[in-house]
């Protein structure tokens, strides 16, 4: 297991190296404006001095190497345009916490609500009218089919009326957290409910459930110990990624409630052509994705004994 993890981490680092190299090389193809805030006012000589200072006059491989060394020392560089002269790490640190807090909160809400809903739907497929299943399906279809902007807006409009709070987010006011968290989680509630229901119905029809019933296991225990436990395995894989990706924030919800988070930061800096920041953010986001996948695989391996990380000999 440890060997496997080390191997996977090396793979991950290699992947990130490739990402950095490609993005760096591509960004260098862009106009050099991206490295200066006020290029119109600068003379040729000033630009050359600036570029030399940034180390961008040297051959491309050397530039990439230097950047890698810099990143390796934990320095993501400074912003050129978004907030001139500020260290990128500081900018991210100031914006990330609020996105992560909101994200984790809504993840918790959607896991609890979505899974309960999935369990209720799956259980009701065995009842006569399948009421929960029918209602749940309608909800899921609506959430999946209607563009999210529509229900985000509706939630903001009617929700703020209902709760009697302002439409904007204030960190100090806990009530103002309710609507954004609800908005952020409603999509994943539908997602978790849909998949858990599906996996649970799948599992409930398997032979080993029949055998468990035949050996006299009470139905509540079957639901918990056999059906739910097994149905949750495929979902476990995506959990670490969902947790890590809260850092990225949500473009639409954050702008709707004017939350000073990470949502849309990447798009903003791309528009501004703040090259160093684009590079740093791409690096952070891809590191998150790669790490999420790795943790997902490990979680899956822990949840399912059939997945083994080492070659086994003489298993039979």
């Amino acid at each position: 297991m440890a060997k496997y993890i080390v191997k996977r981490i090396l793979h991950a680092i290699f992947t990130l190296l490739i990402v950095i190299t490609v993005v760096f090389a591509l960004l260098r193809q862009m106009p050099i404006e991206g490295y200066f805030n006020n290029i119109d006012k600068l003379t040729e000589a000033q630009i050359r001095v600036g570029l030399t200072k940034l180390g961008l006059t040297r051959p491309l491989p050397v530039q990439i190497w230097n950047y890698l060394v810099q990143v390796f020392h934990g320095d993501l560089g400074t912003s050129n345009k978004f907030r001139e002269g500020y260290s990128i790490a500081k900018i991210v640190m100031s914006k990330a916490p609020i996105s992560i807090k909101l994200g984790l909160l809504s993840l918790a809400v959607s896991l609890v609500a979505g899974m309960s809903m999935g369990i209720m739907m799956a259980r009701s497929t065995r009842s006569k009218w399948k009421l929960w299943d029918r209602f749940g399906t309608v909800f899921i279809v609506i959430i999946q089919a209607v563009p999210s902007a529509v229900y985000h807006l509706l939630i903001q409009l009617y929700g703020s009326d209902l709760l009697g709070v302002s439409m904007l987010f204030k960190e100090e006011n806990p009530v103002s957290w309710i609507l954004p968290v609800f908005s952020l989680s409603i999509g994943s509630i539908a997602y978790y409910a849909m998949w858990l229901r599906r996996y649970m119905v799948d599992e409930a029809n398997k032979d080993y459930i029949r055998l468990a019933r035949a050996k006299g296991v009470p139905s509540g225990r079957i639901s918990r110990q056999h059906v739910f436990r097994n149905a949750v395995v495929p979902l476990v894989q995506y959990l670490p990624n969902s947790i890590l990706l809260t850092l990225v924030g949500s473009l639409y919800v954050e702008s709707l409630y004017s939350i000073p988070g990470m949502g849309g930061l990447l798009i903003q800096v791309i528009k501004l052509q703040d090259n160093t920041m684009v590079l740093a953010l791409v690096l952070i986001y891809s590191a998150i994705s790669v790490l999420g996948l790795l943790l997902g695989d490990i979680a899956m391996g822990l949840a399912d004994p059939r997945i083994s990380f080492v070659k086994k000999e003489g298993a039979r």
Partner: protein
Amino acid sequence: MKKHTEPLLSVRDLNFKFTLRGQVLHALRDISLDVYPGESLAIVGESGSGKSVFVKCLMGLNDLNGYVESGSIEYGGKDLTLLKTDSDWKDIRGSRIAMVLQDPMTSLNPLKTIGWQIEEAVRLHQGLKGAEAKKAVYSILEEVGISEPERRAKQYPHEFSGGMRQRVVIAIAMACRPEILICDEPTTALDVTIQAQILGLIRQMQKKYNLTTIYITHDLGVVANVADRIAVMYAGEIVEVGTSDEVFYDPRHPYTWALLSSLPQLGVKGEPLYSIEGTPPNLFHEVKGDAFAPRNPKALKIDYVKRPPMFAVTATHSARTWLIDPRAPKVDPPEHILALRERGKDLVAKAAAEGTALYGASAPEEETGAAASAAVNEENGSAKGVTARG
């Protein structure tokens, strides 16, 4: 013979139906059957004949769209058809009737160790806990022929081969300490080389715990090996029931004739293998007359009009065909069935003369099955893989 004893379980005129998309499927039609303590009963029939539905009725394991329309299942002073909820069934499922399913590859939970899965049954039905439960698990594992039980108990189903898994499934069933063991095609999914071992194990358990076993199978080789009595099912009804020898050597129902005729061993070399023409009736419509008549080239006129009752041939043997009615014209079974009848007489006589010698160390109560199994075994050296397909 145990035919004088009281039946352990007694099914009377059981009608079971399913509703499927507004249509009604009449899955079991007037089933009456007694199961005697300590015997092994085989229920034979092609796919869709209702044999699985029937045994699931005994444990209340049918899907929720199925319901008992009429009839009764008397067992242990209770009528099982009146049990509805899972808690009603608590005293039956596992505790008194246990089941071995067809496919050992899928009938164990892949995410739980086999020790855990056996222990679940031990805790539920033997009331043991902790170290005692663990100990019971190990001894059951050893009993079903799994060595190093302490190591193997910690392993997961995927670390076991098919035959070993079926042993585990049997261990789970035995951990329940049941009175009746239902084996739903226990060897169908297994390698032929393993089949005999598993059947042997079930028989060993039967003897040790004085179990009553009900086999469901379409494999006549298995039937010949294990059954004291045979019930032949077709289109949701029992068409013939009798001791193993009676059904094998003196079959009366045309469907039983056809079923036996499709045994490859009974075919003539060079001739095409026999198969039954046509398909079973659609049970979404009520069947008129004898369900097998449309596929029976020798069907009588009355077979299309009126459903035959169960006619008794002997005290233990009865069949649902008009041919047994004294007014019926004489219709002879196919020639090889007649030949079978002759050979049966010889074998039974021989078996009686030689006592148990025919079947090695088999106990006296297995005599009936022994003659039949000897006949089928004689043909291909072993009974494995002798499959009747309708």
